[in-house]
């Protein structure tokens, strides 16, 4: 049976698509983009993952474009229009100080994003470095690093964060430090497990036979292998981090008023829950939606990046 040419040759010659699918990439950039594209093709198969991704992208866009999206200031009070229900003027109503809830949700997205980014930037490198060193060197180094990890792992995250905030004073920076302190151990463990399975692999032996130093082996050969599972793990942990941050805000130990933060907004809304439910419902829904989105993306990413799942 012969297949007509127009069916086999679906892409325009010389187009971007052909560049993406070229069997012989001409440079490192093309080859990396191709790998990314293959990952995207797999990710695309998860409808819920796409929904999650859309929510996260929306979160980022909203945080960036906050001043454009609303005319209201999230901090300036307007006691005259206190606790107004949702209307054309105030889409999500106003809170007990007459501030527009929609504006505060939008500016609160900035706070949430700030926490997420900082925690990731602190936690992922620390966890990766401790985990890979521990797994690669083994022996005494492993014992010491893993016992330290155990100590941090044994603290309940929120309680340590509470203690921390109490000791250093409440504030968003201290909340981030406190959350980071409890969020790195699972990543270190994951990286260690991953390293243990890699350190006796032939491709690591081959690098050792090139005279590479231990540090070069860890950073250049073992770390890149751990990153995909760490990305998945961090994404899945993100929900927990958001909720811990909101919890700290709720207890008054996170971002300080009048700065808009979803957890703190929920805390103030609690008092007026029966009469003015919108004050608490809006931040509550925002927290739930963003946490869910990170979980959905994490699940989809696991299918794309997990080496045990794929080829």
């Amino acid at each position: 049976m012969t297949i007509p040419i127009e069916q086999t040759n679906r892409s325009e010659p010389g187009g971007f698509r052909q560049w993406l699918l070229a069997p012989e990439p001409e440079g490192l950039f093309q080859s990396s983009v191709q790998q990314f594209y293959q990952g995207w093709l797999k990710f695309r198969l998860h409808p819920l993952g796409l929904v999650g991704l859309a929510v996260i992208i929306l979160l980022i866009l909203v945080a960036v474009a906050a001043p454009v999206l609303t005319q209201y200031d999230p901090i300036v009070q307007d006691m005259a229009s206190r606790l107004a229900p949702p209307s054309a003027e105030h889409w999500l109503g106003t809170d007990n100080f007459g501030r527009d809830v929609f504006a505060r949700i939008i500016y609160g997205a900035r706070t949430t994003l700030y926490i997420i980014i900082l925690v990731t930037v602190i936690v992922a490198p620390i966890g990766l470095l401790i985990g890979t060193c521990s797994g690669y060197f083994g022996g005494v180094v492993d014992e010491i690093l893993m016992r330290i990890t155990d100590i941090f792992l044994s603290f309940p995250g929120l309680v340590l964060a509470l203690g921390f905030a109490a000791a250093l004073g409440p504030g968003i920076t201290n909340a981030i430090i406190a959350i980071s302190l409890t969020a790195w151990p699972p990543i270190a463990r994951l990286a260690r497990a991953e390293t243990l399975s890699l350190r006796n692999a032939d491709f690591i032996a081959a690098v050792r036979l090139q005279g590479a130093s231990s540090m070069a082996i860890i950073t250049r050969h073992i770390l890149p292998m751990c990153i995909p599972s760490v990305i998945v793990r961090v994404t899945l942990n993100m929900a927990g981090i958001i909720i811990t941050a909101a919890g700290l805000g709720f207890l008054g130990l996170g971002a300080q008023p009048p700065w808009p933060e979803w957890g703190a907004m929920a805390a103030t809304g609690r008092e007026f829950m029966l009469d003015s439910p919108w004050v608490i419902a809006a931040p509550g829904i925002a927290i739930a939606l963003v946490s869910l989105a990170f979980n959905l993306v994490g699940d989809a990413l696991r299918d794309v990046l997990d080496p045990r799942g794929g080829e």
Partner: protein
Amino acid sequence: MIEVENLTIRFGAGKKPVVSNFNLAIEPGMAFGLVGESGCGKSTVLRAISGLNPNYEGQIKLDGKILDHRRERSFFRQVQMVFQDPYGSLHPRKTIRSQLKEPLRNQGISAKSTSLDDALQAVGLDPVLSYRFPHQLSGGQRQRVAIARALVLNPAILLLDEPTSALDVSVQAEILNLLQDLRTERGLTYLLVSHDLAVVSHMCSRIAIMEAGEVVEETDIENLRKGTITHPYSQRLLGASRRYGKSA
């Protein structure tokens, strides 16, 4: 070129040795075969010589000089190794080109891009494959990349740990012929470990037969071909290999 004297290897102090009183002398330009059944300690010897396992007793000499158990960096410019499984010996997330660059980088040599293309061409691969990842190559192609990587540093000695046993038969022959050609072109010295007598008799001029961590017989390849080997274990091994050849 390489001399091994009284090599004894134990996995754990006080345990029964896996390899005991192993002696070996390889002349420059020679292809030496180390044969024996699975688990007899062939690969263990190879890992000790390569420096991957520094926990051995006895001496290993290169060009008459006793080597430190922890090898110096310059040692690896002279001795390189090709592993058994081409699916496990290449880094899964690095392009072919960066894997070839890696030995140069680790030895502090600046890489010319043409030399990397040459390295690929020397093992019969088209340089257009440079930016592919290992999972985009076949088993035979991967093993060629592994050989190219071992040769990038221009070593004098190549340690071959069953380089073809993970490949299918037609590809095996290609890789063996490639190794033969490279040896004559570059005057390499080979130490080949294998359980396959056919591979060894194709490649090597002299062999040692191992049983349970000891060399039972060392002989020229002619004796193996003629069947005039003396030790009962060697005869059993040869007999088993011939019967397998007939039934297969």
